[in-house]
């Protein structure tokens, strides 16, 4: 177990900069998830920590030791791959024991460690099977077992659940979290799925175009995104964005979205937004913060009427889609309150959760 630190790490492929000078500190025992769209450099970062890619410049240290020039086997890390990468000619037991055999552990020690890992992962009955005779989920467990038996300083996961079907993915997600709570090894986990990131991580690192956009707990990223990218990436369905103008209304401020809709800015935010009064900004509001009116008829200026384009019942809630000024919006409402497509509906914006974004820099104000 150890902490991992990245200092100004750069990776270039020819002229293309895949990773641009990132800094990241991962304390001991923490579960960190690197998340971002494909091509954002998250897998490259993971592979550089693993030693499978050389770094162009910067420093990577594991447990206080700079490992830039160490081969993967000397970094004391274990990795779980997206396609499992089990050795097809070996049984599950031998797959898990391979690393230990190469490191010259005694037979008894190997047996004890493999059986311990098998118990954690509930695969004791599968140990004498070859990968061919295992299902996708079982293969993934064996791959995790191979990582656990080594008792490494750091676990690295490279999109380990992408090859599983939706139901199994949720199950294995819980499994990974459970395993981490048991073995508590520092973990770096790469995924493009923000739900996986939110559910698993102690801290999430959102990456885009080779840069770190924001590092924070799932709660921080959800409630206090620092950039438009993070605001739009975290949360499903994604946050709604619409251009608006911030205008003075008496003593308060209003965000004018259209000729008929102007949302009052909560007084607690007025000081923060004072500098952009009169300017064009982008308003961000999550679907879950646009609902049917729930304030017992006490109008506060946040209600507005729309015509529904599409209605998607989900069971416990209903997604309704509509457009304001040509921008598509999504909102989550009570199933009973949603009309049919084409119907008019009154909605309420929960402005306490609004974000204003500077359109030029993409930064949340």
């Amino acid at each position: 177990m150890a902490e991992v630190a990245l200092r100004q790490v750069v990776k270039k492929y020819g002229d293309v900069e895949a990773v641009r000078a990132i800094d990241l500190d991962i304390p001991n025992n923490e579960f960190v998830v690197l998340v971002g769209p494909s091509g954002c450099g998250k897998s490259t970062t993971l592979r550089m920590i693993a030693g499978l890619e050389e770094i162009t410049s910067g420093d990577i240290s594991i447990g206080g030791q700079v490992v830039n020039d160490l081969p993967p086997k000397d970094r004391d890390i274990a990795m779980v791959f997206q396609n499992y990468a089990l050795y097809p000619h070996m049984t599950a037991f031998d797959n898990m024991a391979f690393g230990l055999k190469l490191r010259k552990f005694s037979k008894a020690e190997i047996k004890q460690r493999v059986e311990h890992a098998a118990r954690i992962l509930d695969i004791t009955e599968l140990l004498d099977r070859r990968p061919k005779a295992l299902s996708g989920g079982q293969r993934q467990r064996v791959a995790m077992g191979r990582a656990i038996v080594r008792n490494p300083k750091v676990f690295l996961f490279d999109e380990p659940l992408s090859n599983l079907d939706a139901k199994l993915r949720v199950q294995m997600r819980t499994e990974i979290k459970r395993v981490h709570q048991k073995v508590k090894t520092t973990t770096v986990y790469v995924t493009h799925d923000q739900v996986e990131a939110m559910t698993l991580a102690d801290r999430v690192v959102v990456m885009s175009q080779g840069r770190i956009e924001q590092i924070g707990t799932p709660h921080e990223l959800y409630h206090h995104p620092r950039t438009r990218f993070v605001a739009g990436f975290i949360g499903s369905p994604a946050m709604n964005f619409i251009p608006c103008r911030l205008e003075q209304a008496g003593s308060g401020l209003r965000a004018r979205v259209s000729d008929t809709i102007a949302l009052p800015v909560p007084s607690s935010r007025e000081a923060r937004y004072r500098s952009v009064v009169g300017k064009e900004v982008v308003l961000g509001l999550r679907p879950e913060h646009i609902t049917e009116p729930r304030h017992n008829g006490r109008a506060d200026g946040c209600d507005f009427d729309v015509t529904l384009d599409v209605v998607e019942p989900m069971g416990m809630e209903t997604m309704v889609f509509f457009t304001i000024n040509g921008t598509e919006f999504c909102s989550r409402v009570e199933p009973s309150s949603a009309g049919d497509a084409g119907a008019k509906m009154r909605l309420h914006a929960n402005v306490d959760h609004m974000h204003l974004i500077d359109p030029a820099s993409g930064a949340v104000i």
Partner: protein
Amino acid sequence: MSTATLVLPTGKTAPTRSSLRRSRRWALFASYFFLILFAIFFLMPPYYMVVTALKSDAEMARLATNPWFIFDGVTLDQFRILLTQTDFLIFFKNTVIVTVCVVAITMVISVLAAFALGRMRFWGSSILATGIFLTYLVPDTLLFIPMFQIVKSIGLLNSYWGMVLVYPTLTVPFCTWIMIGYFQSIPKELDEAALIDGAGHMQMLLKIFIPVALPGIIAAMIFAFTVSWAAFVYPMAFLYSSDQQVLTVGTVTSLIRGDVYKWGMLMAGALLAAAPPLVIYAFLMDYYIAGLTAGATKG
């Protein structure tokens, strides 16, 4: 779907089904027809060899009988004389020695070369891989004159050890090429996993790549075996005394004297010479098909 059609034999599905069945029957019929034709065509020469090898010289000399059948009774005389009164066993021994050595040398060189060229990316590796394949395209009938000079200069003319040196020029390029393809089909994550598990390149090759690529290795071995067992041009050019001769050339040169063809023994010798490849093919073919790589990754 078939149960649905059985339960509801509507007017629409019935004709489709029977026409499907009819076209399938035609396809089967046509394929059987051509397969049988093909089998007859290729089994004719071996059959003729067997028949001839089991005849007496006297029967062969009698031109009145049909050569496709045995009339005067089956005899093993041809085999007995071949094995006891000719150098056939020496040729056989020489061929076995040459072939075993060539297969061993070929596999060591081409597995190592293919691993390096296929997996360890280095500057010029792909050009080198293509270059190796191109050398295979130069026919041995073109190469044997310069080869003669080389073999002679190192004093291995008229020695089957010269063959051990020369045959790999035919087998190594092709086997390397097969193995490169095979190694490249093994997912990259497998060596990365081995690398993280602590394997060096040699351990990775021995413990992961060779077992996983076994079907490919066996295919390459069969190829090397066949080439070296059946080589004709090189021994014809480089070997002239019968204690150094190999089967292909030896059988022919010792059993054809001037215009006297010992047909019975020639056929018996050809049959015995063809036996080892036959046995090896029969036993190792299964390995070809064994899908060992299945299950390595998501499949």
